[in-house]
């Protein structure tokens, strides 16, 4: 939009914003270089799965020649892989639902009710940002064990919901506060109670914020490692990250197969990410800006 102003006055200054068409080749070169660096390790993992172990040994950084599909087929036909995908999905979906439902409810209270102790309540959740799971992991492990939830996905899901709440509250409270008072007044004139307003107006209106929060919770759960490492010891309850590591140590000599397993296990996260890229980025930057 600013480019037009400059086009009208070409004599002024340096043409900073004028290269709207293609721009500086140096920029593209650096961008390309950076993207190469970002993607090369990923490509190494994906392509490595199409190679044989002898190919990998003789030329570690080479391309597949010939392409071999048995590694991928082997992983795709193993029940372990699908079971771990299933476990990760269950944990991810449950965590997301829990975080979203509890998060919206408590954020609504924090955003739209006035009561004594509200500030303290908000601080309680905000302070949760200071408690990363790493610090609480040993007592969490003991707590989950005492609750009898060892080797149970619920033992992973509940703490993940709890640790997902601070970010959710931080993102959703400003979001819900931004819903104009007039809407609430109109709803109450029309006879809606506070809770009626919550379910009929707040829930639909907060969908964009909820989606962001939900995606963050899902990706965090999908990638989570430390908590499952402590809680899930039985192979049949492994989530994908644990599965990748177990597979990597079990088949440590079969590099190609490990690479195939690894690259297949990153596909769900990558698909998910490409679909919701804008929301994830928006959510992260939004979270940071409070």
């Amino acid at each position: 939009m600013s480019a037009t102003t400059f086009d009208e006055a070409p004599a002024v200054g340096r043409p900073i914003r004028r290269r709207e068409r293609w721009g500086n080749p140096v920029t593209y070169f650096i961008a390309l270089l950076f993207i190469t660096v970002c993607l090369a390790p990923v490509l190494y993992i994906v392509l490595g799965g199409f190679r044989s172990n002898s190919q990998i040994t003789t030329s570690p950084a080479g391309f597949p020649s010939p392409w071999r599909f048995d590694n991928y087929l082997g992983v795709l036909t193993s029940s372990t892989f699908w079971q771990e995908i299933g476990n990760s999905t269950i944990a991810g979906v449950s965590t997301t639902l829990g975080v979203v439902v509890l998060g919206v409810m408590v954020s609504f209270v924090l955003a739209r009710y006035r009561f004594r102790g509200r500030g303290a309540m908000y601080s309680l959740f905000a302070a949760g940002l200071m408690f990363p799971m790493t610090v609480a992991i040993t007592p969490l492990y003991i707590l989950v064990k005492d609750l009898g939830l060892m080797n149970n996905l619920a033992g992973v899901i509940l703490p993940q919901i709890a640790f997902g709440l601070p970010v959710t509250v931080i993102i959703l409270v400003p979001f819900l506060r931004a819903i104009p008072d007039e809407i609430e007044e109109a709803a109450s004139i029309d006879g809606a109670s506070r809770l009626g307003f919550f379910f009929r107006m707040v829930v639909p209106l907060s969908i964009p914020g909820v989606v962001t929060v939900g995606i963050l919770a899902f990706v965090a759960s999908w990638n989570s490692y430390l908590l499952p490492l402590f809680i899930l010891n039985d192979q049949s309850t492994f989530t994908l990250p644990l599965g990748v590591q177990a597979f990597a140590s079990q088949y440590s000599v079969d590099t190609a197969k490990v690479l195939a397993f690894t690259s297949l296990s990153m596909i769900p996260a990558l698909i998910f990410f490409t679909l919701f890229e804008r929301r994830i980025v928006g959510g992260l930057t939004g979270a940071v800006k409070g």
Partner: protein
Amino acid sequence: MSSYPGATSVTDSQPLQGTQKVGGGAQRASSPAGPRPRRKATDWRQRFEITVLAGPAIVVFVAFVIFPVGLAAYYGFYRWKGFGPPIDFVGLGNYVTIFADKAFHEVLLHNGIIVVLSLVIQGPIAIVLALLLNQKIRGRSIIRVLIFVPYVISEVIVGTGWGLMLQTTGAVNDLLQSIGLGAFRADWLSDPRIAIWALMIIISWKYIGFAVILFLAGLQSIPEELFEAASIDGASYWQIQRRITLPLLGPTIRIWAFLSIIGSLQLFDLVYIIWGQYVASTAGTSTMATYMVANGRTSGNYGYGNAVAVVMFLISLAIALAYQRFVLRRDVVAGAVTERKK
């Protein structure tokens, strides 16, 4: 609405229902003290709603976040193997052991190195990249997606992949050899002088996309008019970046640095996956968190592990508070954590 100073927009939109519930409008009409019972009714009702809506979240949060953290502090005073109630009270004994342990000093040093190098390596590169990508170039959205890929991939996958690539006979050394940089081949993972740099390469690779995306978002919030005004005044591209862009990007940079510092202090997954729990200390990449797991759960000394967790938490908290007090103070964004405490 705002003409009633005492009542919020919320409470005075409710009175009808409130009075009906509590005892009818007649009483209210006859009594000059009408507002009082009305108030009580809404109070009661409001309290009920707050309990129903906020209760579950608070219960889960307290049970699985606050309570365990408190528990860690409690267990930290005991020598305890994780079975039965802790009875062997050792006071600050665990803490004395921690601070006397040479291995813990090393761990602190490693964490310090990781904090500093993360800021020094990622910060400048990410700023330059964000400035470049903020120009109106083609394919900007696809670039944005691609540079974010490493951040989305889980630590386990990153660790496994890089672990394989950095082996002595791995792809990195092979690549260096084939492009004529054979002299730079190294034992990336087990040479104690190099391992921490290998770790820094992996960390930078994984997390720099996050910094770039963050900075890009920050740049986009700077009003276009400022650049136009400056360029009309004859400022060069680099002058504009230095005098306008960077200062206005300040808040974003400071909040990124905060997140980076806290993340570096808690670093666990990557180190644990690549180096395992025992190799990390000989390779010089152990962190407070891997030390905690290796000396706590793995060796069955739960009391000790909890004490380490407490130390780690206090260090993070002290740094976080100091940072907020001295660095973030002037930024509005800091409000997220500090503002409410007033």
